[in-house]
């Protein structure tokens, strides 16, 4: 199996979130999601806000990432993200509150609201929850 595996590393400024050998990785690239199997051609992509998922021993795991980069080599995939949380580490209550806050801010008709930021916050919150839900449905969180 040695040549059929990818070393997946997810790193944030605060810590190494993940370092594992896996069989498949799906990444939320800025230009759409892309999948990575072993022996992928060298590839460098910016990541959007989304859920990265990877397969290991028949199970699918989810990691929430926001903004960052993925560097792909034949036997490795390194993700540098400013925020990355494994599905089981996501604070669902916080995400829900963040969603409410962002929605309220978007509804306000006033010039003080930074809509771009509120929209990004909303997207982050929704994506976090979807990572959680997806992980729950596959039984990995």
């Amino acid at each position: 199996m040695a040549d059929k595996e990818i070393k997946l590393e997810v790193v944030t400024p605060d810590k190494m979130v993940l370092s594992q050998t896996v069989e498949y990785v799906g990444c939320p690239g800025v230009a759409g999601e892309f999948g990575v199997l072993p022996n992928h051609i060298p590839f460098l992509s910016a990541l959007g806000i989304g859920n990265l998922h990877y397969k290991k021993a028949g199970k699918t795991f989810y990691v929430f990432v926001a903004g960052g980069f993925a560097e792909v080599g034949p036997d490795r995939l390194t993700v540098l993200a400013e925020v990355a949380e494994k599905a089981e580490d996501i604070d669902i209550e916080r995400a829900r509150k963040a969603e409410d806050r962002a929605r309220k801010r978007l509804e306000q008709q006033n010039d003080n609201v930074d809509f771009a930021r509120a929209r990004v916050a909303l997207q982050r919150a929704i994506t976090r929850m979807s990572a959680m839900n997806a992980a729950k449905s596959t039984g990995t969180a």
Partner: protein
Amino acid sequence: MPSLRDVLNKINSVKKTKQITKAMNMVASAKLRNAQNRIERFRPYADKFYDMLGDLAKGADASVHPLLEVRETIKATCIVLITSDRGLCGSFNYSLIAMALSLAKKLAAEGKTVKFICVGKKARDAVRKSPYEALSNHADIMNSFDFGLASKLGQEVISGYLDGTFDEVQMVFGQFMSVAKQLSTTKAILPLSSAGEEDAVASGPTTEYIYEPSVEGLLAELLPRFINVQLYRGLLDTSASEHAARMRAMDNATRACDDMVGALTLAYNKARQSTITRELMDIVGGAEALKG
């Protein structure tokens, strides 16, 4: 000659001071351990980041990005000064501030305008007293900052640079070498060509990458983050240095307290002895007088 009671009071107060300095020493050493851990945890990210930027810089015409362009005339310089929020850490803040101010003086002598971005209370206070303008102050944050602060600073620096408020950026921070050694350091942040290229374009075999989006698009994403990474490293280092400096200052203070208690105890004993001698003389003198 101070009275016995005065000396005793003094001894007690010095002993209490010693308790405090000792406690502060222990707190600082715990915080230092924390700060060192954070530096350790940040290292993989920073290393990978340099690798990635290096790979990218090889495949790209780096001169296309505005952050890489060196301006011909530099009219204004921004100094990002990072100090601690709290004192009682020896000459740590003082030497950082002195370094920043002498840099500012030098730049001003060259006819450049100098502007400050201050991180930490001590930096804010010092710049307020100086003739230079502070663009922004970030005080009371050194205790609990995260990468978000670096991003915020980075944004400020980049937008100021791009709209021409200043033409170069320097960072003054306390570089953490070891527990025993901290160094006040000046580092050029912008323009990037003088700051990061030589770090980034280090060794490694060339691999042909596919880029998504374009190389320029990726650079536009990576370069601002590179500034954040450098600023974050400055913050982490300064915080670790602060705690190391405080630890040493408090260690010295504890030792000074010990010396003082020793000297005072000696004075107390002498004073007590001389009182006893005097009283004895009185008694002996009285007894002699009765005999006579």
